[in-house]
């Protein structure tokens, strides 16, 4: 199923990728793997060395903070945000 993925500008400007993507998958992890096939450089920026979502990255599925095993429905809206941290 197709879902929409939106990325923050601080990431897309530097990673030189589009801010909006279409991806597929039934879980958030599958959606991200789908995203990485078209934008492989994003993997290092969204996941850590152990394949987990980076500690200061938040990903929402239909406005609900989600994990890699969160189920993703048809036409879901996936939004990546950076946590408010740092200075």
């Amino acid at each position, binding site marked *: 199923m197709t879902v929409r993925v939106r990325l923050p500008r*601080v*990431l897309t400007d*530097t*990673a030189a*990728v589009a801010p909006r993507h279409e991806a597929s998958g039934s879980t958030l992890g599958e959606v991200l793997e789908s995203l990485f096939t078209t934008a492989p450089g994003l993997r290092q*920026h969204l996941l850590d*060395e152990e394949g987990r979502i*980076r500690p200061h*990255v938040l990903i929402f599925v239909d406005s609900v903070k989600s994990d890699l095993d969160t189920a993703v429905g048809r036409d879901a809206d996936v939004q990546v945000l950076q946590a408010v941290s740092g200075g």
Partner: protein
Amino acid sequence: MKRIAVGTDKGAYLLQGSGSSWEVDGPMFPGWKVTAFGRAGDGAHLAAVGSNWFGIGIHRSSDFKEWGDTEAPPIWPEGSSRKMEQVWVFHDDGERLWAGVADAGLFVSEDGASTWAPVEGLNEHPTRPNWVPGFGGLCAHRILTGADRIWVAISAVGCFRSDDAGVTWEPKNDGIPAVDTADDAERPEVGYCIHGLAQDVSEPKRMWRQDHAGMFRSFDGGDTWVRIEEGLPAGFGFVIWRHSGTGRLFTVPLHSSASRVPVDGRLRVYASDDDGDSWQVAGTGWSDSPQYTGVLRGAFDGDDDGAFCVGTTGGKVWLTGDIGETWMELEPSFPRIAAVRILE
């Protein structure tokens, strides 16, 4: 005209100009720390970036304007407890491209920074369990090559040398005081907080070392080190650079580990024309106004033409074009400077 890349806590900038006239392009990589610059063997510019949120990245550019994110920067193997926090330095030896990173490690690329392989002999060195980070973290921040040897500086661990193309490594710190060790204690294998490393490119066994414990020199490739601080207002600092044509050495003394600013606020580059036997303030042009700002270990660069510059934690760039005879503080101000590189 000179072009100088400036990497800061808030993006990269490109200074272009000469004399008192300088223009600034940027910021590039807005919102990201830019921690190192380099050149790949094919001539491509490299920039290492880091983010508190999105980890690290390595970008390539042919013109220092349009950048592309490489897809596979150095990464610790999955399951490793180490984190890839920052790329501290690039070094192109003419055949291979090396990168020093934090958590401390050495990686090598055979394809111009597209892919990287860990150098297991150093990264998994038997002393690794005793590697302890310093104030700047646990980082491999300087890489030198020459005469079929490789040297890597790791804070706060020490200098390592490989004589077999990176397969095996030995600590090279004899003569250096260990960090936080009593004078009469048994010398540990590691725990030497090296800050900077330079060498005579025509005779690589002649080396100079800015260490947490002071300024040192080795004429035997790092096997033994002797202190060389005559004329310096303080032994502490991060900068050591050697002009290959004249042999002139440059450093920027800071008060101490506890107070990492110039003594009495007198920011000065010091020079030595006798291999470090003696030091004096380099040239003229320095400000009489107090400048309580430091220079970090990646924030200096020079070229064979006699240009040498330092970028300060206060965001200013000081430049000489005549091997240190006259100095100028460039007008533009930047965020805290982590890296500078003279492009041409």
